[in-house]
């Protein structure tokens, strides 16, 4: 009999909703919540020996949370870890994806389940993820898919699209026979020969972002945000100039403007000469205050969020997006203007 550990969030563990999203990780013996049905589907060959659960906010808070979760998982010496289904829930999906990536890195077989459009999906890296429905009303069929994937993995099979596998298949560097210029000329000749399909790079799919419903900015709190790396002059948060791994929050309370010399951009992707001459060219605080005074903005958010959008990996950029959305929601911000460099 194979030993399976199941990872779920606080909601599906029956602890509570948003108010309990800060719950730290804990381990319970046997299946919990959706794990009970999953156990029925896996019996008698495989046993869910423990369930590790964690609140969504805590789990999405950073690498330490994932380490805590993985410590609890490892205590049960599982043959396989299963995470989710997370449906379209962003933070839960992020946690399942990160747990799956961490398990893969640690050599523990794993499968996570979430909807194809879950924003956390990409964080799984090369770890296997199978499709679930959009929401918990699709629990039954989602667990059927997940149980089949668990059985396949424990039988030593590789998960494919036939098992409902979703997510990016990693692209790895190879050394070609010819240099890129020679290959490009060969591709141009193929293209002239009528081949419209030939390419070395698949066309990327960008996320379909569902636009938020309109709001009246004069009635709500509006935030200003930037990926132009504008920080206090001494860069106290050590924001990177390229390939950022972090974002920062700096207060705007009591500030009417951003004087040159007190603020600067540490962005490494463009000349910061103009930004440093007048930091408002990156973060339009002066104009936003003016509009707040005239009532066009109900209230300007008391802080701004910043990162450096310069060669940032899509994985990190996606994480920043999820974290920014959560941070702004907690601050009751309803609209934001993000300057993009």
């Amino acid at each position, binding site marked *: 009999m194979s030993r399976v550990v199941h990872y779920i969030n606080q909601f599906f563990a029956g602890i509570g909703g948003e108010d309990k999203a800060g719950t730290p990780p804990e381990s319970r013996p046997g299946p919990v919540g959706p794990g009970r049905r999953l156990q029925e589907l896996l019996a008698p060959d495989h046993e869910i020996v423990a369930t590790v659960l964690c609140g969504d906010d805590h789990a999405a808070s950073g690498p330490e949370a994932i380490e805590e979760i993985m410590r609890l998982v490892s205590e049960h010496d599982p043959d396989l870890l299963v995470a989710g289904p997370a449906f379209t829930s962003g933070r839960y999906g992020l946690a399942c994806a990160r747990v799956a990536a961490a398990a893969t890195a640690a050599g523990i077989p794993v499968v996570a389940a979430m909807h194809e459009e879950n924003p956390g999906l990409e964080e799984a*890296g090369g770890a296997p993820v199978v499709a679930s429905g959009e929401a918990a009303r699709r629990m039954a069929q989602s667990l059927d898919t997940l149980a089949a994937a668990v059985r396949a993995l424990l039988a030593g099979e590789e998960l494919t699209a036939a098992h409902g596998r979703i997510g990016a*298949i990693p692209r790895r560097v190879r050394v070609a026979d010819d240099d890129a210029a020679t290959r490009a000329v060969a591709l141009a000749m193929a293209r002239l020969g009528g081949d419209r399909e030939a390419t070395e790079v698949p066309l990327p799919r960008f996320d379909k972002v569902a636009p938020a419903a309109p709001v009246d900015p004069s009635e709500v709190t509006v935030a200003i945000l930037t990926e132009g790396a504008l920080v206090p002059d001494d860069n106290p948060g050590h924001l990177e100039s390229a390939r950022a791994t972090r974002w920062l929050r700096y207060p705007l309370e009591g500030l009417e403007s951003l004087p040159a010399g007190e603020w600067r951009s540490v962005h490494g992707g463009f000349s910061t000469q103009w930004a440093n001459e007048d930091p408002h060219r990156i973060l339009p605080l002066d104009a936003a205050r003016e509009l707040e005074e005239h009532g066009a903005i109900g209230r300007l958010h008391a802080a701004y969020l910043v990162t450096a959008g310069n060669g940032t990996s*899509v994985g990190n950029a996606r994480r920043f997006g999820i974290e920014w959305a959560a941070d702004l929601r907690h601050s009751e911000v309803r609209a934001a203007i993000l300057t993009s460099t």
Partner: protein
Amino acid sequence: MGSVRTVPEQAPRLTRAVHGVTSVAMGDGTSYAGGTLTVSAAEAESVLADPALASVRVTWTSPGDSARIVKVLDAVEPRTKGPGGGGIFPGFLGPARAQGRGTTHVLRGATVVAAGYLPRAQEAVVEMSGPVAEMSPLGSRHNLVVEFTPAEGAPWEDVDRALRRGVIALAARLAEAALDAEPDEVEELPAVGGGDGEVDGLPRVGAVTNLQTQGNFKDVFVYGRSFGTALPTLLDPGDVDDGAVVSGQFGHPSLKNPTLVHQNHPVVAALRARHGTDLSFAGLVIAPEPVDAVQKDLVAAHAARVCAAAGFDAAVVTKEGGGNADADVSLKMDALEDAGIAAVGIFAEMAGPDGTGPPVVVPPERATAMVSAGNYDERLTLPEVERALGGEQVALLELPATAAMELPTAVIYCANSPLGWGRLTCAEAPTP
């Protein structure tokens, strides 16, 4: 069918007299004999002398050395057309006259490399041995590394200018040592861009080369002047052999095109290789990469018109720099395809360390043919080395420059060469 133009029997062409450099030494005088290039440090230092530089040091490092060059700036291949340069590097060493004719002497296998701190320059690393050496064009060459101490109070712009002028002058001076030597190879380059009996009826394929022109320390010079405010134009491919394009762009190490790579323009080389066989090399169009979105559109539209006027049937479009430069390639690819010209772009993938992110930041909307120059986020492990040139530390890691370290491919000089020098690509890997 248009009328076929006749080409004069003595069509103006460029000949490369290639002198291979197989070993190097320091000595009392500068000389070249039997494949050995000997350099006088005192003479090199006098060529490099400038009020903006307090001191300079020159040191050879060769393939197989347990050595690393950090803070690599520009790299130049020694070339000359005669005593005093004879017109090489037009606009820098002599008047800005059109070149690309006559004979150019090339010291193949040697490079003059500037290395050290400049503002806005991003940490750039070259390995002289080990698995990463072959990822940079400098890893297989004998490199005369120029280290420098700026003069007190000298503005950084002056230090940059002094280095550029000095490195070019030194490269020309070294090549002069081979003027009287019998070349190892004589390469007759095809005349390009006009009608030519042997290529009539073949598809006309050209190159569109974007130059990252984004202000001080991120600029590219054509005939000695910044190309930043220019519109796309045709350049005689022989002109790039003769150093009409000089790099002053020190951002995005793996995605940069130093002077060395322009001198040996990989797309031009690939087009010359097939010229007269199954294609006709239709020409080289150079274009700036503006920071301004409206200008990017204008430059793309104008580049497509220049290609159409030059009769291109297809074009290979290349870039320099990171994600925003993807837009310069993609906009041009779409504009070319709209004009009925098949477009192929070379892109370095930015797919994250695990290779699962979307590979291209700004993909074309209508064009589809893309060549991959590898994933710039992929991590590399560098072994400890005995000696480092260019600096004491690796800026990103605050480690001694000689230490073992893990770095993204992005930091390795020209490793994802957007001009197509390298052999890296990407392919889907099986499930881990």
